[in-house]
Structures are given as structure tokens and as C-alpha cells.
């Protein structure tokens, strides 16, 4: 590979890059070439070296001796880049560095160039210039909108615009480091258009993400890192997701075996009748024992409200929920559990787990009475019980006294499963069960879900990931405009069909 002649069109080219931390080699002889006018994706599991690579690029880490790098054909020394050279690369990180409570306009003018700190703000002129700037990127976003009220794509877009500023010839590369939460299909398409627009302005893009379907849709080429080494460069157009996953993981990932289709005479464990609340209009469906039912739709189309209502975190305004024979017209977290239904929220950090608590403390919180003996919590009994469920859910290492914030996202998610399963529910309601989780962990979580269904749990999965739904669900309900608009079953369930149904109405207009 190293004998390839240097191509003048490469925006950035790096060869033989290594970075050693005490006791750990984060990058080992890595090469990457990002061509001008291309969207180049960088993928790999957590710890594969993605972020180290980006931090070397941004000058945060100094690489080991022996690497070579070119910016637009001009040889440079990584780790010793001049401010000017660093300025040709712009970085947008996960948190987007936007102030959520300020408007789009205010965000774009933060640290405003060429204005005195105390000079009066020319609101109208500013709005005009912001609108023009957004238009450069073909974006129709209201400059007066508060950033926190924008959907994920638009927030990312504002961050991109802010990162690039008024693009001049100087900007060579835009690095997007996990810029969005999971995007729906429609939003991925929008992001793709915006990034192409950025390309047209002469800027190459390095896109880091672990949402592989997004990557395949958006990128031209994909560099895969594993354990700090280059694995391969793939052409996104000719690569299947399955292939990409096995390259990332380094072995063939066994796809979860779809749970067996339950018999028609299995009892109905969950019956939802005319459920309505803000953002959801009269949803009705039922789930039998052993069945996995998917809920999906575009963001805001209503499906994401259903787990909130079922888990008791959001009161609903009308309708009834029957769990295992018990009919309830209102739900609290405790009454849901008492009836045999446990919901796992999508927002792990704010709703699911307490960061400063240990695994045990998190897991046993919903039912502490169980181990309360002779006037105190029996730590040993707690420990035994927790270890059992950690084993069931595949948490490695199974250390009950570890604090939650020291676990990887995948392990945190598995702890949430353990916490839910410990309550021995018959109905499990899962919201985005593999969100922000390693591919390996995601695969093992899906196997777990499938196994739970096979054991006779009734399972509802609210997910924005059509692939996950295709893999796991017997039926998929799609919401549009706050209603359940269609139901797919059996062979009708495919990624394409789900995406199509999500957007069906939009396509008609």
C-alpha cells in the first residue's frame, strides 16, 4: 500500500501512524487517505483507536516517531502542525458545542468575529447574514429557533455550519465525531444532502459514527479500524452491513436467531386499547406470550410515547392497558411492575441508571424489600442475586460493586436488562435497546431479546433502527402523524419496507 504514488487530490493522507500510551498501543501503523470531495467514514468498536486518530489529527496527541502526513499534497509533521495548518481542519464533536438554550443565530455568532465584546448587537443584520449562511448549505432553519427545540439532524447541521463558518478556501477537512444520535432514515438523507453540499464547497469529510446503516448511506468510502490497526477500506456502495460488521468485529457475528413464531393460541399478555396522550392518538394493539412486536416511525410520529406511557413515566389521558389479565386505566412505575410489566427507557443516563450507584445498587432499587432481613439490607444475598442476573445478561466482568459510570454503554444496557428481568415481568417494553452500544454488545443484546421471547415473555420494542426490527420482530407497527398507521407481519417485515412505511405519508404530499 505504501508504494502507491501520492495522489494530488487527497485532502489528507497519513501513513504509518502509531501512537503508544503507557501500557497500550492505541494506534499501530495506521494509514488513511481522505480524498477531496469525498465523505470518508471511520468505523470501529469502542477502543479501536478512532478517537485517538482524531485527537492526533487535531493536535491533541503527539504521535510516535515515523509517521508521514500530507495535507493537500503538502508534507506536514503531525504533532507539530502550525496553527494555520490546524485551521484547515475543523472538528465537530459529539456534544456539538452548541448552547442549547440559545437560538440558532446566537449560537452561530458566539465568539462572533470582528465585533467588540460590548458593541451593540445588530439583530436584524445578524439574522440576515445567518439566513444567508444557512442558505449556502441549503438549510431552511429558522435563525430564531432555540437550538434545544430542533430535531437531531438540524442541531447537527447548525453545528456543522458553525464549525465551518463562512467557508473559505482554507478549510480542507471537516471531521464529524459521532455528530448525531440515531437518525431516522429521513434525517440521514437530509444529513447526507448537507454533507454533499459541504463537499461541493471543496471540503472533504471524515465521518465517525457507530450507526452503520447511516454510514453506509452517507459515506463514499469506509475505513475500518480494529484494535488500533487498519483493517480495510471499503466502498460503501458495494458493502453490505453484514460484511461491514464482520470487518469491525473481526469475526462473523452470529445474527440473533429470530425468536420462533408463537402459536396462535398463546395467551395475550398485553392488550392496549385506545391509548392516548400528548403526541399519541388512540393506539391499540396486543402482544401474545412469546411474541416480539416492534414500534417505529419517524421521530415525533408517536411511537416513542408508547413505552413512556406503558412504563408509567408519562401519565396517559385515556385508554386502558391490560397486562396479564389485569386492566389498568392509569399506570405508575410501581403499578406497572405489580401487574407484571417493566419498561426500559431509552434515556439510560437520565431515566435508566444512576451513574454514582454501583451495579448492585442500581439493580436492586425497584425492589429492596426482597433482601431486607433482620433490620438491614443483606448485602450477601443482594450480591448473589445480582451475580445471577449479570450472568444471565452477559455482563463482563460481572462485578456487582463496580460503579455504573465505569461501565461501557453495552454493559450499562445489559445491567438495565438485568434490573428489569430481576422483577420477573411477563411483559417487557424496550425503548431503543441497542442505542449507543458497541456492535458486539448490540448483537449479544439482540440474542438476549430473542431468547427472552422464546422463554415466553411478551416483548415490545420501540426502535428507530429498522434493521433491528427486521431481525427480531414478528410484527411491526408503524406510527405516522401520532397514529398507528400500518402493521407489518412475517415476510412483509423488511428494512426497506419499514423505512418506506415510516415516510409513506410524506411521500404522498
Amino acid at each position, binding site marked *: 500500500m505504501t508504494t502507491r504514488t501520492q495522489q494530488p487530490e487527497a485532502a489528507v493522507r497519513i501513513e504509518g501512524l502509531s501512537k503508544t500510551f503507557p501500557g497500550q498501543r492505541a494506534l499501530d501503523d495506521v494509514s488513511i487517505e481522505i480524498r477531496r470531495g469525498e465523505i470518508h467514514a471511520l468505523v470501529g*468498536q*469502542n477502543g479501536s483507536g478512532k478517537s485517538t486518530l482524531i485527537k492526533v489529527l487535531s493536535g491533541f496527541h503527539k504521535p510516535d516517531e515515523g509517521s508521514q502526513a500530507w495535507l493537500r499534497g503538502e508534507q506536514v509533521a503531525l504533532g507539530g502542525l502550525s496553527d494555520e495548518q490546524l485551521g484547515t481542519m475543523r472538528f465537530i464533536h459529539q456534544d456539538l458545542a452548541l448552547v442549547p438554550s440559545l437560538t440558532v443565530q446566537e449560537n452561530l455568532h458566539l465568539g462572533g468575529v470582528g465585533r467588540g465584546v460590548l458593541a451593540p448587537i445588530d439583530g436584524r443584520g445578524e439574522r440576515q447574514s445567518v439566513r444567508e449562511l444557512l442558505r449556502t448549505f441549503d438549510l431552511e432553519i429558522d435563525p430564531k429557533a432555540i437550538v434545544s427545540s430542533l430535531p437531531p439532524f438540524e442541531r447537527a447541521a447548525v453545528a456543522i455550519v458553525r464549525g465551518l463558518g463562512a467557508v473559505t478556501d482554507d478549510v480542507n477537512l471537516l471531521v464529524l465525531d459521532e455528530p448525531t444520535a440515531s437518525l431516522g432514515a429521513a434525517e440521514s438523507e437530509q444529513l447526507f444532502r448537507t454533507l454533499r453540499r459541504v463537499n461541493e464547497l471543496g471540503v472533504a469529510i471524515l465521518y465517525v459514527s457507530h450507526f452503520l446503516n447511516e454510514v453506509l448511506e452517507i459515506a463514499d468510502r469506509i475505513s475500518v479500524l480494529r484494535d488500533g490497526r487498519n483493517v480495510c477500506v471499503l466502498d460503501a456502495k458495494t458493502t453490505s452491513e453484514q460484511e461491514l460488521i464482520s470487518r469491525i*468485529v473481526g*469475526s462473523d*457475528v452470529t445474527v440473533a436467531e429470530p425468536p420462533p413464531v408463537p402459536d396462535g393460541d398463546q395467551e395475550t399478555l398485553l392488550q392496549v386499547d385506545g391509548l392516548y396522550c400528548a403526541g399519541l392518538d388512540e393506539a391499540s394493539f396486543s402482544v401474545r406470550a412469546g411474541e416480539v412486536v416492534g414500534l417505529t416511525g419517524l421521530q415525533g410520529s408517536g411511537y416513542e410515547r408508547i413505552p413512556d406511557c406503558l*412504563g408509567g*413515566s408519562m401519565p396517559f389521558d385515556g385508554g386502558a392497558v391490560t397486562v396479564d389479565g389485569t386492566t389498568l386505566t392509569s399506570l405508575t*412505575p*410501581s403499578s406497572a*411492575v405489580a401487574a407484571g410489566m417493566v419498561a426500559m427507557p431509552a434515556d439510560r443516563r*437520565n*431515566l*435508566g*441508571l*444512576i*451513574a*454514582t450507584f454501583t451495579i448492585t*445498587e442500581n439493580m*436492586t*432499587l*425497584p425492589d*429492596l*424489600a426482597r433482601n*431486607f432481613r433482620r*433490620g*438491614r*439490607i443483606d448485602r450477601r444475598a443482594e*450480591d*448473589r*442475586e445480582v*451475580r*445471577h*442476573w449479570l*450472568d*444471565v*445478561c*452477559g*455482563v*463482563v*466482568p*460481572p462485578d456487582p460493586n463496580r*460503579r455504573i*459510570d*465505569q*461501565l*461501557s454503554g*453495552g*454493559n450499562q444496557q445489559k445491567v438495565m436488562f438485568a434490573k428489569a*428481568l*430481576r422483577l420477573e415481568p411477563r411483559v417487557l417494553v424496550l425503548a431503543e435497546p441497542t442505542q449507543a452500544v*458497541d456492535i*458486539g*454488545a448490540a*448483537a*449479544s443484546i439482540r*440474542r*438476549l431479546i430473542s*431468547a427472552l421471547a*422464546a*422463554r415466553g415473555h411478551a416483548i415490545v420494542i420501540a426502535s428507530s433502527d429498522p434493521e433491528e426490527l427486521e431481525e427480531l420482530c414478528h410484527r411491526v407497527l408503524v406510527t405516522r402523524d401520532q397514529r398507528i398507521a400500518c402493521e407489518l407481519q412475517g415476510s412483509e417485515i423488511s428494512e426497506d419496507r419499514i423505512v418506506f412505511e415510516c415516510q409513506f405519508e410524506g411521500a404522498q404530499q
Partner: protein
Amino acid sequence: MQKESTGGTAVEGGGNPLTAWRRIGPALSPRKISGVYILLALIVFYSLATTTFFETTTLRTIATEQAITAIVAMGLTVALAAGVFDLSIAGTMGLANIVVAKLMADGGLDPVVAILLTLIVGAFIGLVNGLLVTKARIDPFIATLGTNSILLAAIFVVSNNQNVLGIPGSFQSIAGNELLGIPLPVFYVLGLALLLWYVLACTPLGRRLYATGGGREVARLAGVPTTRYVIGAFVTSAVVASLAGILVVSTIGTGSTEVGASYLLPAFAAGFLGATQFRPGRFNIWGTVLAVYLLATGVKGLVLMGADVWVPDLFNGLALIVAVGLSGIQRRAKRKAPARTSGTGGAAPDPKQAGEA
């Protein structure tokens, strides 16, 4: 399926000294009880540096004087554990000390009745704080800053801005008497510490209180009635602060209009410094008690070495800042070394075991 169940095979303590050390060793690690080592070092240092430090009278003075601070700080620890600030402890203490004195001196009530009535006043203050925070949804910092000011006004009105004299001698013996040569307040500290430690560390109530503080929504979704826990924490903090106020009257023999404010900062400093001890990252009772005496010893030694009157304030202020800084550093250090799953190999969950529970 190559995996072996680690279920019931956990190694039990046994008589092996090595296993015993493995359990006790980490508990003695400087990372968990650095405060104990610092306290010992301070005692040794001051004993060598001054002639008066290592004397029974000095040690007794520290133990007794700090009993009140320790009690206020323990009450505050309960509020902090629930995730709320209570700045009104100063005003609550002051009002309790005036009220209990007035009830006895002007009302002629029996000390026991006076104490009970005062505690009810304290509980009411806590209830108001709790309702302001949970029902009116006012930030705890602001709400209790407000109630504290109102309490200062109440102190002025109730006392007519005059110290209350004429406290019965029987009441003064509450703080003045000794048992086995040790002043009674030291026992109050121990008793209250044992009680609060037991509730916070050993019972579901305590676990739920910490959960409320650690993530109120998570706790609510786990079925914890978080509103009641927050109110309960404010009531506890206020009742305990009232106890401290009552003890002040018993110690000095008058109801003073000036009591309260000087305890606020030491209590917060002890709470936060305590959260770096024993159970780093968590407000805990023994940590708070240790921190109170650590700070007091530091200050006392300096005073004996001839430090000026402003030194205690400086010392406590620095301690608060350092404590909060330290806990931040501890948090970040922990996050730097996250544990990872061991990839995908063999970690397949075994569905068959799910049914065995």
C-alpha cells in the same frame, strides 16, 4: 456455553489471614480514609509543636465544642444525600435556640415540653422547605436561602433582639454533665451518627434516599416516592439543626440572637470533605463526623500555635473548596479507566438460566 457459572462459588471470608486482609486492606487504603491519616498526622504534629495541644482539656474542648457542628453537619448530610442544599440550617438553629429559651424562661415550660415543641417548629420549617422545592419547584439553593432570611427575621421578632436569660439549671445539665468523664454531647454525636448511619447505609430507606439524590427521575421510575423523600430529607435536616440549636442554649446557658450563621460553612465543608472519605463520591455520616473533627483539630492547633482570629474562617473556606475540588478529581480519575466488555467472544447470555430464579 463454555462459560462456567460463577453463581454460588463466591469465596467466603474464612479464617485465612490473606483473605481477611483482602477485605480489610482496601478499607484502610489512603484513597478511602486519607482523612484519618491526616487527622493522626495533625495530632502528632501539634503535640510536638505545642505544649498545650495534647492535654485532656484541649482534646475535651475540641470534642465538646465540635459536637454541635457535628450534629448540624450530620443533618445537612441527609439533605445532601437526597440531592438538595439546605442553607436554612443556620436560621433554623438560631430560631430553635431562641424558641426553646423563650418557652422555658418566659413561658415557664418544663424543659422536655419546650424541647418537643421546638422540634415541632423545626419539623415545620423543614416541611416548608420541602414543599417549596417539590411542589413550587423552586431550586433548593434559592428556596432555602429565602427561608433562611425569613428565619433571621423571625429570630429578631421572637427575641425582640435580646438574648434570653433565665434558663433552668436542669436544662443546662443536658450539655454540661459528663458520663465516664466524657461530656454528654460527645455521646449525642455518637448516638445520632449511629442512628443516621444505620438508616442511610443499611436500610432500603437510605438506599432510596441516595437514589433520589443520584437521579431523581431514575428513582421515581423505580417506584421511589421521590417527593416524599425530598421533603423527608428537609424535615430531618431541620429537626437535627433544631437539636443543635437546643444544645447551644444548654451549653452557654442563654438563648442568643447570634447563634447559627457561624455553623453554616463548617457544616457544608464537613459534608463535602466527608464525601471524599470512607465511601468516596457519596455524602456519608462517618465521613462528615470525621471531617468535622479533622477541620476542628486543624483550626485548634493553629490557634494554639498563635494564629489570628481570622484563621478558622480561612481554614474552613479553603477546606470546602479543596474538598469539592478533590471529589471532582476522584470522579474524573475513576472515569478515565472504564471497564470494557471483552468483545463478543463467548459472552452469549444463556437463556436457560433466566428461568431458574
